[in-house]
């Protein structure tokens, strides 16, 4: 199955990118590994028939937000490899234990959820028919501008507040 092959490829890319991001010394390298992980996640979204989400993920996340991070790294002149800033051995054990416990918790919760919900959910045929009739954009736009119009408008307020907040916080103090 070609889809299975691509899924394994994207999963390996995503996990490899994420682990490399955590372990990389140079913040710029870390950021580029994260872009690799986001790219692979977008591929996974395509495999799950969420084409529009995949495109927006690439443009907004891997494009815009990552460029914002890169811009700040360059602005603060942090783009050089320094001594690795991983925490000490005790903290490492704690971090890996917490992450492992989190993974176990999520694994149990998600596998229980997938078994109960997938059984009663709509099948691949329904998803295909929906994409066929409304298109990849219409499938998302239809509920967004009908059922979720007010949350959508509130999102614009949130973004406005974030713009104002970012300008106020990063502004140089008046002399």
């Amino acid at each position, binding site marked *: 199955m070609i*889809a299975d092959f691509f*899924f394994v490829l994207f*999963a390996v890319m995503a*996990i490899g990118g*994420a*682990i490399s*991001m*955590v372990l990389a010394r140079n*913040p710029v390298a*870390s*950021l580029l590994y*994260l872009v690799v*992980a986001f790219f692979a*996640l977008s591929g*996974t979204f395509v495999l*799950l028939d*969420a084409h529009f*989400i995949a495109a*927006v*993920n690439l443009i907004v*996340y891997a494009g815009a*937000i990552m460029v*914002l991070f890169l811009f*700040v790294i360059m*602005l*603060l002149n942090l783009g050089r490899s320094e001594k690795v*800033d*991983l*925490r000490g051995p005790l*903290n*490492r054990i704690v*971090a*890996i234990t*917490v*992450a492992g416990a*989190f*993974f176990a918790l999520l*694994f149990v919760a*998600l*596998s229980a*959820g*997938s078994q109960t*919900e997938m059984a009663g*959910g*709509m099948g*691949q045929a329904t998803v295909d028919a*929906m994409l066929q009739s409304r298109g990849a954009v219409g*499938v*998302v736009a239809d*509920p967004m501008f009908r*059922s979720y119009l007010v*949350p959508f408008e509130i*999102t614009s307020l949130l*973004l406005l*507040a*974030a713009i104002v907040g*970012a*300008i106020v*916080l*990063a502004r140089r103090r008046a002399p």
Partner: protein
Amino acid sequence: MNIETYSLILSALLFAIGTAGVLLRRNAIIIFMCIELMLNAVNLTLVVFSRSLGIEAQVFVFFVMAVAAAEAAVGLAIIIAIFRHYELVDVDRFNLLKW
């Protein structure tokens, strides 16, 4: 086992890696990147469940992205403001509010 189930495992794994990164690193910007990774892992979960529970879940992916963009803008502005004072981005040294 199908792609949906493996995608859920993948998202749990990415979330756990993000958690480990937040706890392991001291560089504030890399901690932020780990948070973005965790948000995207949640997006993957939402997309998987949108196939079985209704396509509206993909709208929530949009809201997550909008909140992530706002969070990144404000967070990076805070990091720039702190950097102006201390000339570093090591979270262990920002201990003014620590008990």
